[in-house]
């Protein structure tokens, strides 16, 4: 119960912060953290794109938001996944799923369910990718995919609403800089 109230307050706070914040005209992938661990290099980033009421309406109508995320390094380790945000209309619950196409091949991981859209959105935007330790060059690309409207037997392109279709970022590791 308390957890639901806390989620509610957090959701409300994020709604207002989205409402007040200036809109992002173009999408970008912002690097939040770059960690070089013993065996892996971990990149934590945020996919930024414009969010507005129409986007909320689309998600609330059960139309999924899909990004194809490709990450690769100069060591040849690459990951291709489709990240989806969708809403269960009956339960008012938002789910985030990652369909890993490369290297595992169609492995679907569903993240935690959220009761508030903005909390789900925060999770949806956060990306964490790990690469082999020896890599010195990393690139992450995100492409907005058309969304299927299940009951109307068609798909729509949300890029007109969120203001971008494809964005990418690259990071050059310490070894390369040296």
């Amino acid at each position, binding site marked *: 119960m308390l957890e639901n109230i806390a989620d509610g307050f957090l959701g409300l706070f994020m709604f207002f912060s989205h409402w007040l914040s200036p809109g992002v005209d173009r999408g970008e992938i912002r690097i939040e953290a770059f960690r070089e661990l013993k065996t892996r290099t971990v990149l934590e980033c945020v996919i930024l794109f414009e969010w507005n009421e129409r986007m909320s309406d689309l998600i609330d*109508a059960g139309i999924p938001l899909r990004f194809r995320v490709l990450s690769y390094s100069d060591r040849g380790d690459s990951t291709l996944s489709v990240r989806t945000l969708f809403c269960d209309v009956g339960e008012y619950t938002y789910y985030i799923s990652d369909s890993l196409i490369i290297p595992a091949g169609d492995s679907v991981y569903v993240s935690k369910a959220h009761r508030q859209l903005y909390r789900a959105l925060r999770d949806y935007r956060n990306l964490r990718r790990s690469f082999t330790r020896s890599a010195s060059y990393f690139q992450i690309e995100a492409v907005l995919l058309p969304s299927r409207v299940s*009951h*109307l037997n068609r798909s729509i392109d949300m890029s007109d609403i969120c203001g971008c279709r494809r964005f990418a970022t690259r990071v050059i590791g310490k070894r390369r800089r040296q």
Partner: protein
Amino acid sequence: MRLWRRLELEWKVLLLAAVLFVAFAWPVQHFFISRLSATLIQSIDPNLEATLRFALHGATGRQRDALREHIERYRQTRVLIPIVVKEQQRLLIALSIGLFAFFLLLALWVLKRLTRPLKNLAGAVDRIGKGETVRIANVSGGALGIVEQAVVNLQDELVTLREKARVQGMESAWKDIARVMAHEIKNPLTPIRLTLDRIEERAGCGQSVSNEELIKSLSRINTQVDILERLVDQFRSFSREPEVRIAAVDCAALVRSVADSMGRSITTEIKGAATIQSDPYLLQQLFLNLWKNSLEAGADRVRVVIGTDDTAAVTITMFDNGPGIPPEHLERIWLPYVTFKKKGSGLGLAVVKQLVETLRGSIALVSPPGQGVRITLSFPPELTRET
């Protein structure tokens, strides 16, 4: 406005079509799309979701799944209406522009097909007007074909008319030559006739004619015969300018001899003197025409003043006491075959003007009301020097 006039028809049509498209087609489609969007949104029951959700609370199993699907369909329909309408609007605009471009190209093609033959026809008509024979291919159908046929007929008619005009022109030219010859031959004949009449008159009255007077009369007749001979020579070489034989001419003596040749029919008073380099025969012909003109107009007294003007040009001013020329006729007096006298040929002053121009002089005629005519001949200073 000038630019609009200079624009060709097809570009005018193009511009008008573009203006009409922007002015009408765009707002009209915007209006209909807005109406469509509003109608579609209004067609969805806003309470439907609440009803479905109420039913969902008590539902289980398949019924619950079905209700969930209904809610989802309801939401998707509602949220997609603006997107679908926007898509349809874009499609409609693209179709409108496509259709506009298609009809524009069609119109341009049709206009080109229409205007190009018209331009060719205009060029052909222009060349026909200049006397060229143009071959017009009558291949267009419809109204354009009728115009082409009309131009072909026009050309045929013009060829016929030109031939007729050529024949008539030749006839007219021969008539003119005959008139000019008659007029110019008549001029020297008048002094001859007057001289002979005087001798005949003397003889008729029983008066004797002195040798000196006889020689003078014969000399006068001889001079006029010379003029006649020269006239014949000039008519023989009709197409050429009169030949100018420059010699020193005593203006006063020349005017006096012309006045003498006119006999007593007109009294002449001469003042001043000057010598110019000119053709005495052409000058004599010139003055004879002037004297004869005054005589025919009804003058019986002529006063001549010879002098020089500010530019050192020799001026010979002739005043007569005739009725003068009305101001409204002054503009046309130098034109050939234009006469305001009952028995005039209309050639006298035209010949005078031509002779003055041949002798590189100038002539001015004024006719103050009730004061006869004043004619001023002016010969430039270079003609006064010995050559």
